[in-house]
Structure formats: structure tokens, C-alpha cells
């Protein structure tokens, strides 16, 4: 293992708000000193970080790697390369692969393949029900032992409230977190948010009540079972309001929002632009405003890329037939920075939504070393992202490392460019 010295950087630790010049020394995969480095430290390599921010590597709670089963849309190799190119050093992947992650063997294989690539750390979510079919519980304890950090239905909604209650009872027996996307199974069938735009374009709508009804159901079940729930991808102002009340009540819930909902609205669909075909659908301006405020005030805990590589054939279709999803790993940092600047927040605060806050959501499912991710602390794991906060770049999906080449942000100029990413002390990515 190399000894590394990062010199002359602007050190930002989102967990403490620390923001100032300094050096970072790394040995044996860990951060050994932050700020001033002892002259006795003998680095094998020094990285000059003049003009760069030295921050913890990003932690993304929603990344579809497409393996196993959807290799035509993404492979572990391409998507992990995309992660580190985006400064992301830990990814949580949902279980909606083919077959779904409902058996320990599948989880172990995925973790093994990821370890061999030696890029970002991979934390899979296990399927909550077998085959995500919403009927039979999975072997959660076995799956947790294999490395699952929580249990999820991904986008396969669970309509049967009896099964949902049992899944939450069982998960809470062992202290596992249940990750749910709040969307009613029946009301959520449309392809765009209900509203003026969907009405005008003749697209089937998903009403806000598809989200609020699901949230009410989930909160009642949390009250009844005591299960800890992480809510994935909020989309509406009304939904944000319900989460705020639930947190005030003291319910054990956390939630995230995707970069898409943070920056876009249904008006961006324009003339049936299939790049804007997303799940959950893009809603209106006031929903976006509420989401932006809620991420700032902590009602929403984490910002995620909701990275979903979609191949050309699946996207080049009429809007409703196009596969939902967008490539996001390489945009997460820039879109967090853009939001932070627009909201007038400090750099440390903006970064906290993609570093220490998502780690807090993962909680004690992480081993002690891994739980130091998302912070810049001595003795912590050396997952580090070096980026140029002044650089501006234009999103060109064809240049993505990801196999998915579709982005609703194509052509947009964004702030912040990753220069170097370290994972457990080794250089996993360096810009040309």
C-alpha cells in the first residue's frame, strides 16, 4: 500500500463544517492526518491539490448497476468506472436486477465482482420479497450476512398492505431498515405527473395522491411495527410536508430525493423529450421548490443520482413507451454544487447531502471503518474526492463513462469537475 500526500488543497469536511487550507496524509488505506502533516511522513506519491477541494468521496444511495440481467444497459465495469469518475466512492444498489437480489449467492457474487474491480465500495439492498413479487419474504438475515445494508422493493410497489406489515415487522425484529418508494400501486401507473402539461400532451398522469396515500400507509405501518424506513425519491411538496410531520412526531424515517427532482419540472418534457421520462415523474415548480428547501433544512436527508443506464433502443421510443431513467453518477457532485450555490448554502453544507448524511442513513449497517466514509477524519477510510470548484463543463452524454448515454441535463453547463478520486487510499480515477 502506497503512502500518499495531498498537498495545498482546500480541505472540506461536511460533517464538521471544516473548510480551510491544508494537507492530507494517507497510509494503509486510511487517513493518517488532516490539516498539517508531520515532516516525518514519507509519501510514495504527492498530489498537488492547489485550487482543488479535498472532500470525502461521495456516497450515492441509488445506483442501478444493471448486473445481473441487464448487461446490455450497464455492466459493473462501466458503471463503477462512472462512479469514481463522478467522485462517488460508495454506492448503494437497489435489488431490481434480473434475477432480483433475493438470494445470498447473488449478493455475494455481486460484492465479489465489485471487490475485484477495486473501484467504489458496493452496498447492495436485498429484495424485501422474493422475486420482488410482493408475496413471500426473503431470507433477510442470510442476505444481511451476505452484505445487504437494507431491504427494498425498488420500483416494484407493494400493494398488499398485509404483506407490507409483515415485511416491516420481520425486518424490525432484526433492526433492518426497509427502503420503500412511496407510490400507490394503482394510482401510480401513469407516465407523467398529473397537471397542465400531462393534460395538454395527452399523457397519462400520476397524481400527487399516489405519493401521499402511500406515505400515510407507510407511516401507519411504522407506528404499528416500529420498523425503520428509508423513503426513496420523494417527488411532491405534499409528500415533503408529510415527511416533515412524521419526523417531528419522532418516527424512525429518513428520505432521499434524486438530482432530477431537485432541478427539473414537468415543463422540461417540452415536446415529448424521452430523456425526461423518469420515475417518479417530474412534477411542478412548487414541488421542486419545496424539495429544494426540504433538502436544505434536513427534512430530506440525502441527495441521490438515481443512476439508471438505459440503452438507445429503449429510450428512442414514443414518450410513454420509453424506459424511464437517466444516467446520473457523473453528475451527482455538480448538481449538488449547483443546488447549493443557488440556495446560497456553504460548500460544506451542499456536500453533506452526498457524503455524511447518506452515511448517517446507512447507520450501523456499515462496519466501523466503512462508517467513517463521508467524513474527513484521522483514522477514517481514505475515500476522497478532489475536485475543481471553479471549473465549468457542459454535459455531453456521449462522453459518459457509464454505458447509459441519456441525461435530462444534456447540454447544460454545470459547476465543479472531479480531478481525482481515491478509494481506500488508492487512486481509482484521475482526470486526463
Amino acid at each position, binding site marked *: 500500500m502506497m503512502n500518499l500526500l495531498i498537498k495545498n488543497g482546500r480541505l472540506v469536511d461536511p460533517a464538521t463544517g471544516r473548510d480551510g487550507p491544508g494537507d492530507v496524509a494517507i497510509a494503509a488505506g486510511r487517513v493518517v492526518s488532516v490539516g498539517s502533516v508531520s515532516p516525518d511522513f514519507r509519501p510514495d506519491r504527492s498530489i498537488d491539490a492547489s485550487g482543488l477541494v479535498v472532500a470525502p468521496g461521495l456516497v450515492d444511495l441509488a445506483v442501478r448497476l444493471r448486473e445481473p440481467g441487464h448487461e446490455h444497459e450497464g455492466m459493473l465495469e462501466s458503471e463503477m468506472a462512472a462512479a469514481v469518475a463522478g467522485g462517488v466512492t460508495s454506492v448503494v444498489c437497489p435489488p431490481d436486477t434480473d434475477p432480483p437480489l433475493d438470494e445470498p449467492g447473488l449478493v455475494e457474487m455481486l460484492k465479489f465482482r465489485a471487490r475485484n474491480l477495486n473501484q467504489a465500495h458496493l452496498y447492495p439492498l436485498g429484495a424485501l420479497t422474493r422475486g420482488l413479487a410482493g408475496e413471500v419474504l426473503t431470507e433477510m438475515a442470510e442476505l444481511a450476512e451476505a452484505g445487504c445494508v437494507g431491504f427494498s422493493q425498488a420500483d416494484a410497489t407493494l400493494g398488499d398492505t398485509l404483506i407490507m406489515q409483515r415485511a416491516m415487522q420481520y425486518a424490525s425484529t432484526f433492526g433492518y431498515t426497509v427502503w420503500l418508494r412511496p407510490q400507490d400501486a394503482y394510482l401510480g401507473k401513469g407516465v407523467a405527473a*398529473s*397537471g*397542465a402539461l*400531462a*393534460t*395538454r*400532451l*395527452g*399523457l397519462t*398522469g400520476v397524481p400527487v395522491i399516489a405519493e401521499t396515500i402511500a406515505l400515510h400507509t407507510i407511516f401507519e405501518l411504522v407506528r404499528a411495527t416500529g420498523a425503520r424506513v428509508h423513503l426513496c425519491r420523494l417527488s411532491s411538496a405534499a409528500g415533503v410536508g408529510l415527511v416533515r410531520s412524521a419526523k417531528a412526531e419522532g418516527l424512525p424515517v429518513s428520505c432521499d430525493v434524486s438530482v432530477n427532482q431537485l432541478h427539473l419540472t414537468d*415543463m422540461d418534457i*417540452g*415536446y*415529448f*423529450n*424521452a430523456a425526461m421520462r423518469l420515475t417518479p415523474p417530474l412534477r411542478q415548480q412548487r414541488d421542486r421548490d419545496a424539495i429544494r428547501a426540504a433538502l436544505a433544512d434536513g427534512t430530506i436527508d440525502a441527495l441521490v443520482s438515481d443512476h439508471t443506464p438505459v440503452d438507445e*433502443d429503449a429510450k*428512442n*421510443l*414514443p*414518450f*410513454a*413507451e420509453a424506459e424511464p431513467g437517466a444516467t446520473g453518477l457523473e453528475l451527482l457532485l455538480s448538481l449538488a454544487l449547483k443546488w447549493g450555490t443557488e440556495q446560497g448554502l456553504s460548500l460544506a453544507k451542499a456536500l453533506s447531502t452526498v457524503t455524511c448524511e447518506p452515511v448517517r442513513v446507512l447507520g450501523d449497517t456499515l462496519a466501523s471503518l466503512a462508517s467513517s466514509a463521508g467524513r474527513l477524519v484521522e483514522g477514517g477510510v481514505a475515500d476522497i474526492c478532489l475536485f475543481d470548484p471553479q471549473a465549468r463543463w457542459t454535459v455531453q452524454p456521449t462522453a459518459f463513462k457509464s454505458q447509459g448515454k441519456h441525461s435530462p441535463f444534456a447540454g447544460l453547463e454545470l459547476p465543479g469537475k472531479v480531478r481525482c478520486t481515491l478509494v481506500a487510499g488508492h487512486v481509482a480515477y484521475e482526470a486526463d
Partner: protein
Amino acid sequence: MQRNPQLNKHGELIHLLSIEGLPRALLHQILDTAGTFLSVNDRDVKKVPLLRGKSVFNLFFENSTRTRTTFEIAAKRLSADVINLDIARSSAAKGESLLDTIANLSAMHADMFVVRHSESGAPYLIAQHCAPHVHVVNAGDGRHAHPTQGLLDMYTIRHFKQDFTQLTVAIVGDIVHSRVARSDIHALTTLGVPEIRAVGPKTLVPGDLREMGVRVCHDMAEGVRGADVVIMLRLQNERMSGAMLPSAGEFFKNYGLTQEKLALAKPDAIVMHPGPINRGVEIESSVADGKQSVILPQVTFGIAVRMAVMSTIAGNNA
């Protein structure tokens, strides 16, 4: 926001995809052109050479004999070569993608595609991906738009009522699933109609429709009272029973256009229908065949309007 894809940079119409976003003057210009073609239809030799040597491909991904036939007649009267492709039964059934079909047909040197598709927005995708010299006419996409039907409805209204700016127009029936209703609403709004009513039960006429600038009426009497124009929509078979409506009979009882209900409209009100009509479901036979009905003139005007649309866009370059 992208530029409106149906207009070139001079604001001229190169595709007809939707009436939304087209200026009032352009709509009147197309209706005026249609007026000049109406006389062609009365001549012994019903042909003008405006599209001579051009190939018009009718691409119907969804079956519709009537609309396809009117486009075919219109194109032939403009002297175009017309190729009818029943895609619903050929390429798509074999698994060929929409864009592959378009690429193949473009290679056959098509000049114009007339497209009917079951998905909203499909003609936009085609217009985006075909060669710059190829024009696209939307012949109905999902619930989104049926702009030539909208224009022929406007031609009909202008023919019988002259001035749009004093009219009350009631559109009755399954508005939420209707591309005809959406195109009519955009056209009527653009042409300055002060009151447009959408009439039907809440399952077929949800409150969201107010966003399009219409007055939503759930009561038929309120909807047709004092109207100058009553447009009845076809109730599709699949809506006649289930969660949208309990039965065709109950729909007719509440929203069917009878002599009695029509008597609430202005005495000189006209009755329109895009066809094919369901007698006894949305309209009583005596009304459909009555003296206020202009359903058959609509069909005649439809050919002239489609000739006007095709000759207009063929004359403009991307």
C-alpha cells in the same frame, strides 16, 4: 426549451404535429387555402398538380380506414403518389422498431409521412429523426392531437358561423381520452372563441381540463344551453363499461344528444361529430340526420383541409 419542431426558423409550417402553438393567422391561411380546394372537388377532373412527383406514405400504426382514405384522396387530388402501409399488421408486428421503420421508408425517398399512432408524441419522434426534406403530418397520436380533424372542424364552424369571437362551443363526451377534443380546444382558443365547454361525467371530463382554458360542465343541460356549436365525441367501446362508465345506456341517458337536449342550444346551433357515430350511444338518430347536423359536410371539408395542409407544408423547407 426546444423550438416548436413544426415550424422552421422563418415561422413557416414544415410539419403539422399539433395545433397548439400555431398562430391564428396561420390557421386562417390554411382554412382559406382549403376553401380554394373545395371547388376542385366539384370539378370533373378533380386534380391539381401541386404534389406531382412526390411520394406520400400513409403510416398507420393504428387502424383507421376512414382517416386514411381521406388522406389518400387528398394526396391523390394533389397528384402525389400514395403508398399505404398498414404497419399495425406488418413491420411492428415483426418487431421492427419505429425508428428503423422510418429509416427504411426514408431510404425509399418518401417526401411526406402521414402518421397515425396509438402513443401520444410518436409523430414528434418521427419528425425529429427523418431526413430534413421529409414532412410529417400527424393523423392522430394517442390522446394528444388530431390536428387535421381540428382544422376541418374549424373550417366547418367558420363555414356555418363565420365569426369565431362571439361563439359558445360545447364539446361533449369522452374528453380525457380524446385527441380530437384537444385539437379542437387549442384551435378554438387560438381563433378567439370566448366560451368552450367540456361536458361529461368526472371520469371522462376531469377538472384538470380547466388548465386548457375550458369551462368544465358535468351537467348536460348546463353544457349545451345557449351553445352555437355542439361537438359530440365518439365513445370508444372500451369505455362503455368498466371503471370509466357503468354502461352505454346510462351514458346516453345523461349525456346523449337528443332533440330535447338540443332544444336547449341556440335555435340555429350546429351539431358536429368526428365520426364514426354510435347511434343511440352519444347521439340520437333523429339528431344525427336532422337539419342542424353538419356531420356529412365535415367529411367533405375534411378532404379540402387535408389538401391545404399537405400543399402548405410541402411548399416550405426545413
